């Protein structure tokens, strides 16, 4: 495995007196495709939001190429430009077309010129199959299409790692497939991905590493074969048995 992009040490997060994440240690290497699974409320999404600094961790450190991004004086915006995020609720900009959604960040944050940014955006929109919809507004397209645009928007920024926060949970069942297909292809292309998901098939088939979180701690992690095949911890076994039905 290549160099590590993110190293997380002793990360904790509490909302008031409610401790949501406890002492998380965790590394993301280049080319990793990691699925984070676990019951609702186990802290998966909070961990992802902490990594992207949308939530400020209570303690611990997040090293990005060895530099602590939680230290005073680091610019969270500059860091976030390298760490893309795809949300459960898409969060496409409602005042822009599909194409503008993918262009605006490149122009304003990366300072690319408009034409380069447009070509780049079109390239990614084509890859997610949304090229015919470049002039549509977010309210005019379906959930699955919105999520594919959101992925293209994140990818157009050429991030080093892409975080997915339950990207298919808000979708109708018929649209889950199209988004997972895009993500599968992305993983195949060597993109570093961190995916919070309830799609066990995706976690098992696509990811290189699966992390099971329970009650704010990383309970167990390993290769998909290991974790799904012979889970070591009773909590993991119980959680997975619910999916086998």
């Amino acid at each position, binding site marked *: 495995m290549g160099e590590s992009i993110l190293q997380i040490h002793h990360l904790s997060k509490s909302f008031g007196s409610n401790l949501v994440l406890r002492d998380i240690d965790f590394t993301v290497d280049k080319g990793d495709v990691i699925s984070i699974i676990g019951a609702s409320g186990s802290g998966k999404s909070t961990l992802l939001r902490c990594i992207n600094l949308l939530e400020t961790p209570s303690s611990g450190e997040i090293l990005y190429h060895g530099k602590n991004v939680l230290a005073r004086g680091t610019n969270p915006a500059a860091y*976030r430009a390298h760490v893309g995020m795809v949300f459960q609720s898409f969060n496409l900009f409602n005042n822009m077309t599909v194409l503008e959604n993918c262009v605006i960040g490149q122009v304003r944050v990366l300072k690319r010129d408009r034409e380069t940014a447009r070509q780049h955006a079109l390239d990614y929109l084509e890859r997610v199959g949304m090229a015919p919809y470049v002039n549509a507004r977010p309210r005019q397209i379906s959930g699955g299409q919105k999520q594919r645009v959101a992925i293209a928007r994140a990818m157009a920024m050429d991030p080093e790692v892409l975080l997915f926060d339950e990207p298919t949970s808000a979708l109708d069942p018929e649209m889950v497939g199209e988004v997972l297909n895009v993500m599968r292809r992305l993983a195949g292309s060597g993109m570093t991905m961190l995916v919070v998901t309830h799609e066990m098939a995706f976690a098992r088939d696509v990811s290189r590493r699966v992390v099971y979180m329970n009650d704010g701690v990383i309970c167990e992690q390993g290769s998909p074969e290991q974790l799904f095949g012979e889970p070591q911890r009773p909590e993991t076994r119980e959680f997975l048995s619910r999916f086998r039905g």
Partner: protein
Amino acid sequence: MNKFAQLGADIARLWGKYGAAYLSGIENTLILALVGTVIGCLIGFVCGVLNTIPYTKNDHPVKRFVLKLVRVIIRIYVEVFRGTPMVLQAVFLYYGLPYFTNNSVKFTSVWAAAIVVVSINTGAYMAESVRGGIISVDPGQTEGAKAIGMTHVQTMTSVILPQALRNIMPQIGNNFIINVKDTSVMFIIGFPDFFAAHRAAVGASYLYFPSASVEMIGYLTMTLLASFLLRWVEKKMDGSSSYELVQGDQLTMTAGTYSFPDRRSPFDERNPEGEKSVQRESLRRQIEREEAIRQGQRAEQRRDNGLNTQQRGEN
């Protein structure tokens, strides 16, 4: 019937004699209302943006102090200018300044004084509207912008303000219409608006009621036109609810897309189900917008609450 004929004749006589004065009054009123509303909106936007700059406990104490101070100053500005009549503000500014400074500071032009008064008055109302418009934009929009590395300023100018502007368009229209009517108090400092034309005409002709009728008709015409124009602008801003597919390359058209029978795919004719869902969507958006406006008004009533919620949201 006789009375109406009489009134009509009097109005015609008045218009014949003072028509030019009425028309120039209308012109001045519209210019003052428009300029005042535009500058007032700019003031409102600046205040609204300053009011919603987030700060957390981890920020530098100086930054926190400055931001809090700014909020207090804006609060005082809003309370004072929203809580006093515009006619008195005009008097205080136009006559009060020279009185207190022994004539060294004063408005040389009645136009400047009138525009300043109307602008800061409108600004006080708009500051709260803009704040309401900003906090009614889905927080997910801010997160989406942050996630691609935008700074607070970039998020505001590219994503939040354009949407907030759409949300508060009805209030901007309200303020413009209110300004058209309320600039009539500017006769107090000798501003030559439409109402001043009435006072001049009455002073010379003693046709009090017919002139008041001219005013009524004139003001109503101006406000109705304004309403109509504003509706049109709002419609323009919303754009059409359908869109054109870009059909450049036939192969890319289907790449990765799935066909949903109840939606318009690239190959479907407009089918009725798709049309219905578009209608439902636009209805839903309208309800959301009205809700946002109501929220803005509620926020005005419970400013303290609003401020608290906002701070909690940042933590």
